[in-house]
């Protein structure tokens, strides 16, 4: 598949999830139980991007020792928990990462 076809398909599927909710989905179609489970979608899917990017090296092997990303992500998570700020979380993580690789 060409890059453009891939982009267009991803765009179509993204658009359809948005359109279906406005045009097709009625409130009655979701009972509270389904709604409750769907509210966990971000918690269920985002870690699949977060964890491998932190714990795996470029070749895809698990890297625990000498891995500044783990400490930086922990600091970012702690800052996030206390500040509840998206921007503070991102920048504290990047700042600690740079501190660990350039200064320490």
């Amino acid at each position, binding site marked *: *598949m060409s*890059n*453009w*076809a*891939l*982009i*267009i398909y*991803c*765009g179509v*599927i*993204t*658009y359809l*999830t*948005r*359109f*279906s*909710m*406005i*045009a*097709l*989905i*009625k*409130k009655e179609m*979701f009972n509270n139980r389904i*709604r409750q*489970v*769907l*509210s*966990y*979608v*971000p*918690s*269920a*899917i*985002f*870690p*699949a*991007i*977060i*964890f*491998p*990017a932190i*714990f*795996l090296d470029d070749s*895809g092997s*698990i890297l625990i020792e000498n891995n500044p*990303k783990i400490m930086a*992500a922990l600091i*970012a*998570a702690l800052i*996030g928990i206390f*500040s*509840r700020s*998206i*921007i503070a*979380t*991102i920048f504290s*993580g990047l700042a600690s*990462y*740079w501190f660990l690789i350039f200064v320490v």
Partner: protein
Amino acid sequence: MKSNLKVFLKGIIDVSPLMIPVIPFGLIFGVLSIDVGFSPLETMGMSLIVFGGASQIVLLQLFSGGASSLVIISSVGAVNSRHLLYGAVVSEHLSDLKLIWKIIISYFLIDQAYAISNEYLKKNKDQNRYFHLVGAGATCWVIWQSTTFLGIILGAAIPEKLGLSFAVPLTFLALLVNDFRKFINVIVIVVSGLVATLGYNYIPFKAYAIVAGLTGLLAAMILTRTVKKNE
């Protein structure tokens, strides 16, 4: 009833604070997209056609990992399934609209616009209240397109040594800050993260994101049921 323009402007003003984190997100996307091998035109096309931060980053991440198109597209679908939840909430406010407006608004319905306009829609019963959503969505659109463009240009100037790709997990981590305080969410996060990390090399077709997501949801189903029983 306020004029359409006033409601539209109110949408712009209300959504503005939420735009601050979108700026680095868009820049990072632009930089990374060039980095993993998309052309500037394709990168811009992605932001115009897909117009969704999480979708686009997942696309890049799996593309650079060598996943097949089918896996990339279904993973993007999985990431977007959260939009179905918004549907249950927002659709009742928009049910009287003409189809053409539904088609237009759907394009602009991203997390930030949804979050902010849902509050407005709940409190307001004016016929033209959906202009708030259009204003909020259009603001996100302008920010997203311009930061993508800046990222493409800056990309070449940013040294690889900075490890800017680390900003991707950080951005997603940041989107979960409110979930870290909830017990069930934390368990779901850890389960999904472990499955993805340990399964990265073993789950075929790079479908680890889908497998991990489904495992996480299953954990959520079991946990919410158990917790309810104990209450």
